[in-house]
């Protein structure tokens, strides 16, 4: 254990958690609107390669992240059209999105294997960064870490404190009632789906541009699925998502550090641990009742306006 520096570990935790935090906060909004999009993994990996390609071609990580958001949203649009207008099964369409996204990203990514992306600069917060301990743990990161945290606060504020958030939640809780009140259920949901896709794309690009940073096929390795599990864990609350993502990030960073430190635990067991812990957390959370958890009542149900 002596080889592990707790300060570096905490700093790495923030970086390690950000991809999942971004994807999960997007999916939270989607599910709050009553739509279950299981294609997070596909949108993340598409975002990872779109962001990577744009960043390499333009030399700008910022443009890369914008491209990633666009790529994720484009794939989400496909899901939105299929589920909202053509009323396809959400579970099957989400799976299709993941299968297609994995293939598409591998196809685009061929030209980018072994390429190094332009580095994303750390944000210089001046005196804050120079603080002992806290400076390195909290104030020495790239801008996306702070964007992800700001997104959590923004999503919380919009869902809880604004009219738009109220409408979104109404659509998710009871789409027929929301429709009767004159809200455009399909459009609200489509907007939520696009937001979710853009966030998943950002999460993917964070992996390929900052966390790893390079492109390899299938590099998300289940992060999208873990993001879905974290939404359940959070009880559909934005700050719950933050806690879940950071807990999970902590586990995966710790297991990587333990592997590197050569602790006497089999490497395979360590690399399984993030998935096993996610399953364990799901079991603990789901033994509570669905309503106590706060799942939106219309989650996963198709909406077809008859009048």
């Amino acid at each position, binding site marked *: 254990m002596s080889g592990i520096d707790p300060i570096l570990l905490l700093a790495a935790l923030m970086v390690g958690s950000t991809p999942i935090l971004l994807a999960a906060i997007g999916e939270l909004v989607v599910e709050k609107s009553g739509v279950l999009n299981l294609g997070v993994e596909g949108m993340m990996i598409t975002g990872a390669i779109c962001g990577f390609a744009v960043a390499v071609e333009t030399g700008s990580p910022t443009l890369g992240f914008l491209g990633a958001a666009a790529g994720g949203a484009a794939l989400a649009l496909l899901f939105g059209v*299929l589920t909202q207008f053509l*009323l396809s099964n959400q579970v099957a369409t989400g799976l299709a999105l993941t*299968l297609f996204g*994995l293939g598409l990203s*591998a*196809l685009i990514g061929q030209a980018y294997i072994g390429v190094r992306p332009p580095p994303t600069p750390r944000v210089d917060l001046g005196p804050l960064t120079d603080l002992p301990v806290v400076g390195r743990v909290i104030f020495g990161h790239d801008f996306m870490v702070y964007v992800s945290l700001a997104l959590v606060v923004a999503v919380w504020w919009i869902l809880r404190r604004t009219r738009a958030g109220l409408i979104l939640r109404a659509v998710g809780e009871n789409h027929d009632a929301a429709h009767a009140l004159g809200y455009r259920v399909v459009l609200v949901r489509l907007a939520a789906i696009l937001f979710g896709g853009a966030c998943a794309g950002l999460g993917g690009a964070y992996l390929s541009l900052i966390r790893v940073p390079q492109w390899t096929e299938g590099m998300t390795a289940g992060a999208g699925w873990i993001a879905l599990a974290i939404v*359940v864990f959070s009880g559909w609350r934005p700050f719950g998502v933050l806690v879940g993502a950071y807990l999970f990030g902590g586990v995966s960073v710790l297991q990587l550090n333990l592997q590197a430190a050569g602790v006497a635990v089999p490497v395979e067991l360590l690399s399984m641990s993030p998935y096993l812990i996610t399953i364990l957390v799901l079991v603990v959370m789901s033994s509570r009742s669905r309503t106590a958890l706060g799942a939106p009542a219309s989650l996963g149900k198709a909406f077809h306006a008859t009048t």
Partner: protein
Amino acid sequence: MIRLVPRAEPSTAWTIATPILAVLLTMIAGGLMFAALGKDPFESIRTIFWDPLFHPQFAGYSRPQLLVKAGPLILIAIGLSLGFRAGVWNIGAEGQYIVGALAGAGTALALYPLEAWWIFPLAVLIGALGGWAWAMIPALLKTRFRTNEILVSLLLVYVAEALLASMSLGLMRNPEGGGFPGSRNLARWEPTANAELIGGTGMHWGVLTAFLAVIAAYVLLTRHIRGFHLRLAGQSPRAARFAGVEPNRLVIFCLGVSGALAGLAGIFEVTGPAGQISIDFNVGYGFTAIIVAFLGRLHPVGILLAGLLMALTYIGGELAQLMLGLPAAAIQAFQGMLLFFLLAVDVLTNYRLRLGAVA
């Protein structure tokens, strides 16, 4: 303005026509994708769908491959389709496939160098049990704690992959393999060889099992009360409960059968076409089988045809890689596209299109 009017019952004609329409649309969109990659779209489509069967030079090699590739796809998809019909979503077949192969191969390797005829049947049985046991994890968590089976079964795929890496580098590594990862070759060891049953057709025990599974699933769904319960639970869970269907038993049954069939596919693969346990012997059949199940309309006969078609895209894809330099990932995207188009045109099965404003 186009409106959708729900049909009282799904249209039979469209149920059959939509997969064909989806395949045609995928060919068009795929052709555009190939053209964007700088390949001749017509030549690409012909190489994928026609040449593996009828090319004078390659057909001799690739025709038997059709059954070799279709076997595991059909076997897994039949199992998945039962669950999908009942609203039980096992999407971790890839993991059950790996664990089934590991369990069966592990049993056979433990008996090496014993020469006995019963090793192969035993390995197959243990393989099915392995897949079944792996699928029981999400099943029991679902029935006990109402944990979402989609997430658990999928996350277990990553656990199974880590297990596979561990086994092929450690416990099951061939001691005479010169330190290379991977087990002894099971296909070349007489007691476990899953040999071709009819020379030159690619028909091995796994393909035979897949055909038997198609027949069994057909009988189950059309002639057996449990098949009726499956369909009822999928269409109306509430009505199913009134009819005395126990949801928990249904979950255990669906996940158990699909896990066991995926495990069978796995053990037949490592004792036959793949030959050994190695880090990447699994090529994603467990995921492609999801597409096969939907393309076959969750119907046994449909799955048989869909499995053959999907196998064709695998072989044709390899041929196109060889002949035209078409990237392997393009085929993967092509297969994903097929599922998209299928889901999109499926609206025609359940709804009528009407032009004009609300009447």
